[in-house]
C-alpha cells in the first residue's frame, strides 16, 4: 500500500467489521439512501451469505466491501484496514491484495484465454508466485483442461469457475461473490456453490456471497438478511 492506513484492533477472528455504514446516492435532486446503518462482523474463514431482495442494498454493500465505492459514513475494516481513510489509489491497492471478486456475469476478458485471465489478475496484483495449493484449486474447480480456451468457448459454469480461480490467484483475504449463480442453470449453480463451500472448508478462505436466492444462501455457514439498506436478521 502507498501509506499505512489505520489498523483497527478488531478481534483476530473478524476479517470484516462494519459499523453504522451509510451510503447515499445523489441522483439529480433526489437522495437515495442505499445503506442506512449496517453493522456486520465476518469471522476469518467464515462463509457468509447476504440475502435480500432487489434494492435491499446488498450490491452497494458488496461494492463498498470490495473497495469499488467509498462509504458516505460509518466504518469498514477489511483485514484490519480502515476503508474510510483510504484514498482512491489505496482502495485500488486493497483490491489487488485483499479482495477477490466473483461476479454474476463472470466478467472474464473475452480476448484472453482462461489461463491468461488468471495471469492478468496476478500481474495486476503485482504477485509473481501463485498460492502453493493453486494447482489443487484448479483441480477442484475442474478447469485444468480448459485453460487454453477463450471465454466464448467455455460454458457459463466453466467461465464462473475460471472467475473463481482468478479471484483466488492473489490469495485474497476475502472472496466477494455477487450473485455467482445468477446466470447459471441449477446443475451448474449447485456445482459452483459446492466448489465455494469446498474451498471454504479446505483452505479456510473467507467468502462473502451476495444472493437473492435462499437455496444458494443455504450453502453458506451463516446467512444475514438485508432489507431497505439495513441488516434485519442474522
Amino acid at each position, binding site marked *: 500500500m502507498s501509506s499505512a492506513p489505520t489498523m483497527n484492533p478488531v478481534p483476530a477472528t473478524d476479517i470484516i467489521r462494519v459499523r453504522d455504514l451509510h451510503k447515499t446516492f445523489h441522483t439529480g435532486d433526489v437522495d437515495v439512501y442505499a445503506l442506512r446503518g449496517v453493522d456486520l462482523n465476518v469471522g476469518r474463514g467464515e462463509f457468509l451469505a447476504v440475502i435480500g431482495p432487489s434494492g435491499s442494498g446488498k450490491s452497494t454493500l458488496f461494492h463498498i466491501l470490495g473497495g469499488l465505492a467509498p462509504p458516505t459514513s460509518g466504518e469498514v475494516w477489511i483485514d484490519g484496514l480502515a476503508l474510510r481513510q483510504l484514498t482512491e489509489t489505496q482502495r485500488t491497492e486493497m483490491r489487488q491484495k485483499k479482495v477477490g471478486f466473483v461476479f454474476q456475469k463472470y466478467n472474464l476478458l*473475452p*480476448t484472453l484465454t482462461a489461463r491468461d485471465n488468471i495471469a492478468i489478475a496476478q500481474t495486476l496484483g503485482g504477485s509473481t508466485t501463485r498460492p502453493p495449493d493453486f494447482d489443487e484449486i484448479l483441480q477442484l474447480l475442474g478447469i485444468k483442461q480448459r485453460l487454453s480456451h477463450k471465454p466464448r468457448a467455455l460454458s457459463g459454469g466453466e467461465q464462473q469457475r475460471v472467475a473463481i480461480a482468478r479471484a483466488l490467484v492473489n490469495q485474497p483475504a476475502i472472496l466477494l461473490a455477487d450473485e455467482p449463480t445468477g446466470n447459471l442453470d441449477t446443475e451448474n449453480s449447485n456445482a459452483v456453490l459446492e466448489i465455494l463451500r469446498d474451498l471454504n472448508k479446505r483452505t479456510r478462505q473467507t467468502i462473502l456471497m451476495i444472493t437473492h436466492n435462499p437455496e444458494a444462501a443455504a450453502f453458506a455457514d451463516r446467512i444475514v438478511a438485508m432489507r431497505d439498506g439495513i441488516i434485519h436478521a442474522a
Partner: protein
Amino acid sequence: MINKLVIENLKHRWVRTLLSALVVGVQVMSILTLIGLSHGLLEQSAQRAKGTGADIFLKPDTHGTFSFSGAQINERFVPFVEKQPHVLQAVGVLSVPIEVVNTLNGLNFSEFEKLNGGTQFIAGGPPHGANDLVVDAYYAKQHHLQIGQAVKVMGHDWRLSGIIAGGVLGRFIAPLATLQQLTGNAEPPRISEILVKLDDPALTNQEVTRLNQLLKGNLQAISVADFVSQFNINNIPDLKAFIAVVTVLAVVVGFLVVFLSMYTAVVERTREIGILKALGAKPNTILGILVREAVVLAIVGWVIGLVFTFAARGAIMATIPASLPVVNVPAWWPIAAAIALAGALLGAIYPGWKAARQDTIEALAYE
C-alpha cells in the same frame, strides 16, 4: 501479460486494427513519397549540372538568389568569357521551363560535346537539323519514343534524333537557334546561362572570384560544386514549407484515425475496463494499455507505409520516371516513424484518459 492483452485486443478487432494501420501507412507513404520526390528532383538536377562537364556556371546576376527564369544574358557574352584567362571553352545555354519540373535546353551540340567530353547516346545521335531533338532515357521510356519519331514539345513539332542517358544537362536538348526563334530570344540573341570549362579545374574558386569581379552587375559566376550544393531542400523555402504542411496534415490524419479507433475501442470495451479496474488496475495501467495499442498501430502502420513507399516508387518509376523521379530517402524513415507515433499518441490521449477515469461500478454494469 499487459503486452499480451494489448496484442490480443488488437487481434480481436483485426479489421479495425488493419484499417487504422493502413491509414497510418498511407500517411507514412505520403510523407516518404513526397520527400523521395523532392530529393529525386533535386538529385537529378544536381546530377544534370554535374553532367555538363563544366567547372563554372555564369548566370544573370540576381543578387545571390537562385533563379529558374529564362533568357536574360546577351549571347555576345559567350565569346567575351571565352577570351578570359584559363577559360578553355564557354557554351551558351537557353533553358525554357516546360512540363512544370522540366526544361528544354537549347545549345550548340557540337560545342557542348567538346565541353563534356562526348555525350553517350543510347540510341540515335546528335541533332543535325534545325528541328532535331535529343531527349533523355527517362522521357523516352515514359513516352515510348523511337528515333525519327515526331515529338511535340512547346507546341512545336520536333524529330527525335537521339536518346541520351539521364543526368546530362536536362531532359530535352534542341538547337539553340531554333529555340531562340521559338521563344522570341533571337533578336538580340539571348541565353540563360553560360557553361564554362577551365584549363585547370583546380583554379575554379580563383576564377569564380575573378569572373565575379569582372562581370559584376551583369553575370554571376558560381562553381558547379557550389551550384550543386544548392540543390538541397533546406535551400528552397517553399519546398520546406510544403513539406511542413504535409507533415502537419499527416499528424492530424494519424491523430484522427487513432483517436476514432481508440475511442470506439474504449466505448466497446467499457465493461472490460471495469473488470481490469476491479482487479486492481490503476488509471495509469488503463491509460498505458491504450497508449501501447496506439504505439503498436503506429509501428505496424509505419511498416506498411514503408512497403507502400517502395511500391509507389516502383510504380512511379515504371510509368512516369521523367515527370516524377522518386528516390528512397532512408534518413526520413525514422522521422516518418516519429510523425506516425506522434499522431497515434495524440489520438490515444483522450480515449485513454476517458477510460482511466471511468467509474468501475458503472463500467461493470455496462451492457
